[in-house]
């Protein structure tokens, strides 16, 4: 069946009809087309191994293998199209779903993900990521922000201030992402804005990942003496990733303005009918 698309005058997202996954993003203004495969994976949390008895926990991220496992290889999808919004609802599993949303005039894709309660009946702690895979030749480099202001260049298995002996190929390449992470080949740039601080990395050229939720079964011996095992309302988390595709030159203007809108968000209030205070600057 034909590929499924949602688009407005600035951006088009195309979904694979067989898997239901996002497979391509096009910036209509710049005529940029980038194959982007986005889906969810989970790292099996370490409980200690023969190299180190360090377990993954509230203070420590340490997967027990480099390769994350897919939540699902495909998503069941539903399309909602109205004059004011176009949405693709993706259902990956009973505990992982996402809505890819596009409003008229919007220059970014909104990915509203919902994860949880993460099942741990198999006695494995899980650390769930959203991963974007593209053919961009990024030469081991990616970029993360520091508190929404300075953008820092990150290089895989490298530290600028000392000679790194990398012992944790995954966790040793994870960095704090307060508002955005991006990858670029010097010509095209894929930027993902977050609505909260998350861990993020680029473990392979052209790939970008953000950790969205965790549920662990063992304490990491750093003082909490309790595993990071949400049982209450925190077991279920919903958030948004805003995805921008642009030329490397034009990208900063886009993500800086959008990040401001994200962190200085509008606030609605609902009121009984009555004399409406008209709008006021």
């Amino acid at each position, binding site marked *: 069946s034909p590929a499924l698309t949602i688009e407005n005058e600035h951006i088009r997202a195309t979904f694979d009809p067989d898997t239901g996954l996002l497979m391509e993003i096009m910036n209509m203004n710049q005529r940029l087309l980038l194959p982007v495969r986005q889906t969810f994976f989970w790292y099996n949390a370490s409980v200690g191994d023969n190299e180190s008895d360090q377990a993954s926990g509230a203070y420590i991220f340490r997967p027990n293998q480099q390769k994350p496992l897919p939540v699902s290889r495909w998503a069941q999808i539903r399309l*909602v199209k109205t004059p004011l919004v176009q949405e693709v609802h993706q259902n990956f599993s009973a505990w992982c779903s996402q809505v890819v949303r596009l409003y008229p005039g919007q220059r970014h894709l909104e990915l509203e993900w919902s994860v949880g309660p993460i099942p741990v009946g198999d006695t494995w702690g899980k650390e769930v990521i959203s991963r974007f895979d593209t053919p961009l030749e990024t030469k081991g480099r990616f970029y993360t922000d520091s508190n929404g202001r300075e953008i820092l260049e990150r290089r895989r298995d490298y530290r600028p201030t000392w000679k790194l002996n990398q012992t944790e190929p995954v966790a040793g390449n994870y960095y704090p992402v307060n508002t955005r992470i991006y990858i670029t080949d010097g010509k095209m740039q894929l930027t993902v804005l977050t609505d909260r601080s998350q861990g993020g990395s680029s473990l392979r050229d052209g790939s970008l990942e953000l950790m969205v939720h965790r549920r662990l079964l063992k304490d990491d011996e750093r003082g909490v003496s309790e595993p990071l095992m949400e049982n209450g309302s925190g077991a279920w988390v919903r958030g948004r990733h805003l995805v921008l595709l642009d030329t490397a030159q034009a990208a900063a203007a886009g993500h800086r303005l959008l990040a401001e809108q994200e962190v200085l*968000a*509008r606030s*609605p209030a609902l009121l009984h009918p009555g004399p409406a205070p*008209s709008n006021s600057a």
Partner: protein
Amino acid sequence: SGDSAPLNKAMAVLQHHDAVSGTSRQHVADDYARQLAAGWGSCEVRGTGLGRHGGGDTKGRGRGLGKKGQGQFQVIVYNPLGRKVNWMVRLPVSEGVFVVKDPNGRTVPSDVVIYPSSDSQAHPPELLFSASLPALGFSTYSVAQVPRWKPQARTPQPIPRRSW
């Protein structure tokens, strides 16, 4: 009336790295959430009666707006940015048709999106409309539910055929 001091105090307590990064025991995390919720609650203007569950219940705040007899409400949206923005307002409503007017009384395009999901509680219908917000200011939109149109039994008039 609302009071934001408790929320300020809660936010001050939650500057601790345990609150920011979740490196605390569960009961501590729960207490952080309790302080935030209490602070947030005291900010709310109570008794607007817009919730689905009747006037006093603030838990349902905003859910299922437009219940019978409460088919009118106003939405004030504040924009903290130093520049004008357009923002798609999404409000959970009971099904129905709504008319949305901007601060100048002009009707703005709106939509009620009904989700094809089995569990309507998880995905209640949503009223969408685009709000235009001034820099560092607010706009007030009025929303009114249009009474459901009851089709009067009437014989359909034959449509005069036009020759194309």
